[in-house]
């Protein structure tokens, strides 16, 4: 049964059937095979899968990111980041990393961040003499900071399907996000120096930097506002999403740079992205319900526990599975399907759920920039017109760096748990 389900899952997926449809088809086949389960009960489960207030955080933070991109905040933050990095070797490449970090609070998804920077930064980088494949690989890589710094859609979904506090996950991922940004800055420095790209320029005046900082401040304050609000018990993650939208709308009204057409497109994109994600969520919830009847999650768990009972080794093993799976399948879907399956294993070995969540979400997103299949890679290559093969070569040092960061997160649990447990 498990073998058959597994094989048909992989075959249907490879034939290009959307993940949600594969999950629905397999669940329905089982519903037909077992007379004890009524298909109306299955339909009821599908609807019930959407009826949860915490899930509203997903469209709300997607909308925040979409609105931010049209509001004009992005440009102000970019001006600031460029002034700060100007006296450094590879200044514009470092701007790329810094911009992702500073804007992470307003763009919850790696893909949104990659699309935006591919459009505005990569052409400028090419003009300054960076090779295009390097710029594309850097843009895709720095986009992985966005899901770690609050708010992150991946963390919200992980918290939702595993019953982990979303507030604690948000706080726990902040330091890992900063570690990742630091590692990227270091790597960029080495590569830019060796390649002789973009020599340092004269430092901007402190007054100029100060003014630029004040103009960028609203965006930089966003993660603080969200984290303090949630952890302080002022509002739930979903309400924080509502506040974040209102906050962004305020700047749209203030700056008056977004056209009605931009705002309309932001809303349509939000509908499309949300609907696609939540369909996978509802379908995988229904699918997991059926797997549980078959005791499949328990069997997978027992098999994993049989392989090792050392928490660190287990994290490495699960990390490797997720990395390989993430190379082939979209990360969001993997969080929804695999997180509930692996969570009991982590708990059985006493791994902190927050550490597990941070490692899980980070490694899953890593798959997004790894060939052959990766959403962030496709987005970046499509916009920058860099061929996938050239991208694949340029991204190697970045992936090596990410594996080092993942190892740090696994070996040193306090990196993700210290702030969360405060």
């Amino acid at each position, binding site marked *: 049964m498990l073998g058959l389900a597994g094989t048909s899952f992989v075959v249907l997926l490879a034939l290009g059937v959307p993940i949600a449809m594969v999950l629905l088809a397999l669940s329905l086949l089982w519903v037909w095979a077992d007379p004890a389960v009524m*298909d109306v009960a299955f339909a009821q489960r599908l609807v019930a899968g959407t009826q949860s207030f915490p899930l509203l955080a997903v469209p709300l933070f997607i*909308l925040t990111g979409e609105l931010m991109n049209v509001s004009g905040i992005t440009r102000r933050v970019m001006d600031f980041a460029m002034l700060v990095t100007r006296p450094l070797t590879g200044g514009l490449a470092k701007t790329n990393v810094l911009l992702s970090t500073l804007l992470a609070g307003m763009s919850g998804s790696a893909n949104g961040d990659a699309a935006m920077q591919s459009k505005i930064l990569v052409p400028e980088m090419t003009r300054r003499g960076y090779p295009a494949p390097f710029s594309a690989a850097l843009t895709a890589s720095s986009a992985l900071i966005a899901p770690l710094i609050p708010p992150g859609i991946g963390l919200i979904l992980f918290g939702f399907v595993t019953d982990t506090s979303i507030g604690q996950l948000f706080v726990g991922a902040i330091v890992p996000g900063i570690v990742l940004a630091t590692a990227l800055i270091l790597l960029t420095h080495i590569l830019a120096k060796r390649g002789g790209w973009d020599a340092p320029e004269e430092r901007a005046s402190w007054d100029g930097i100060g003014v630029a900082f004040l103009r960028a401040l609203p965006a930089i304050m966003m993660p603080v506002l969200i984290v303090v609000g949630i952890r302080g018990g002022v509002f739930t993650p979903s*309400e924080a999403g509502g506040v974040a939208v209102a906050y962004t709308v305020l700047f749209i009204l203030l700056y008056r740079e977004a056209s009605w057409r931009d705002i309309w497109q932001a809303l349509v994109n939000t509908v499309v992205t949300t609907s696609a994600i939540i369909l996978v969520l509802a379908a995988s919830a229904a699918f997991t319900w059926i797997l549980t009847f078959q005791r499949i999650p328990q069997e997978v768990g027992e098999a994993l526990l049989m392989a090792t009972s050392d928490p660190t080794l287990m994290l490495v093993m699960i990390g490797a599975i997720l990395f390989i799976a993430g190379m082939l399948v979209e990360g969001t879907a993997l969080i929804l399907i695999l997180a509930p399956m692996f969570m009991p294993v982590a708990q059985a070995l006493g791994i902190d759920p927050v550490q597990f969540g941070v490692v899980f979400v980070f490694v899953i997103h890593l798959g997004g920039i790894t060939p052959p299949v990766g959403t962030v890679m496709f987005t970046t290559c499509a916009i920058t017109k860099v061929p996938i093969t050239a991208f694949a070569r340029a991204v190697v040092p970045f992936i090596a760096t990410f594996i080092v960061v993942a190892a740090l997160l696994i070996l040193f649990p306090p990196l993700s748990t210290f702030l969360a447990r405060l």
Partner: protein
Amino acid sequence: MGAIALMERVIGGILTVATVLVTVAMVGLVILAVVMRYVFGAPLIYSYDLSTLLFAWMVFLGLAVAERARAHLAVDVIDMALPGRWRGTLFAVRQVAMAGLSLFIAYIGWQLFSRAGMIMPSLRVSIGWLYAALPIGFALLALFQLLALARLVDGSRSESA
């Protein structure tokens, strides 16, 4: 060209407007609930149920909008590797199979809807208002899965002509 493309545009346009309106209402309600609680000290008791109800409609009506935007998460390695003709065949088979599946879900969703008797307490309306999103959403999804196919057939015919 003509009828199919027109139908696709008109229904697709109406659906897009509808989902955006539902989204705006949902977002507005969440913000309003926070404001009411903190600024006016008068929490809206129905806000949770009403916002999740709107969310269900956003998601299920959005399925067809997402299909139109080709946004449903899928793996397309084989599609890219196949030569044009085979890719078209695979696409056609897939769209028809998926439309069949969507129609079946719409059918069981309809059964669920017609059995709905419960009243949602905080809103004092039948739970049918929630369940109806499932059959309507999946029926429209099936329609757009087939329309995508019809457009492809249409396109290749006008190309060869």
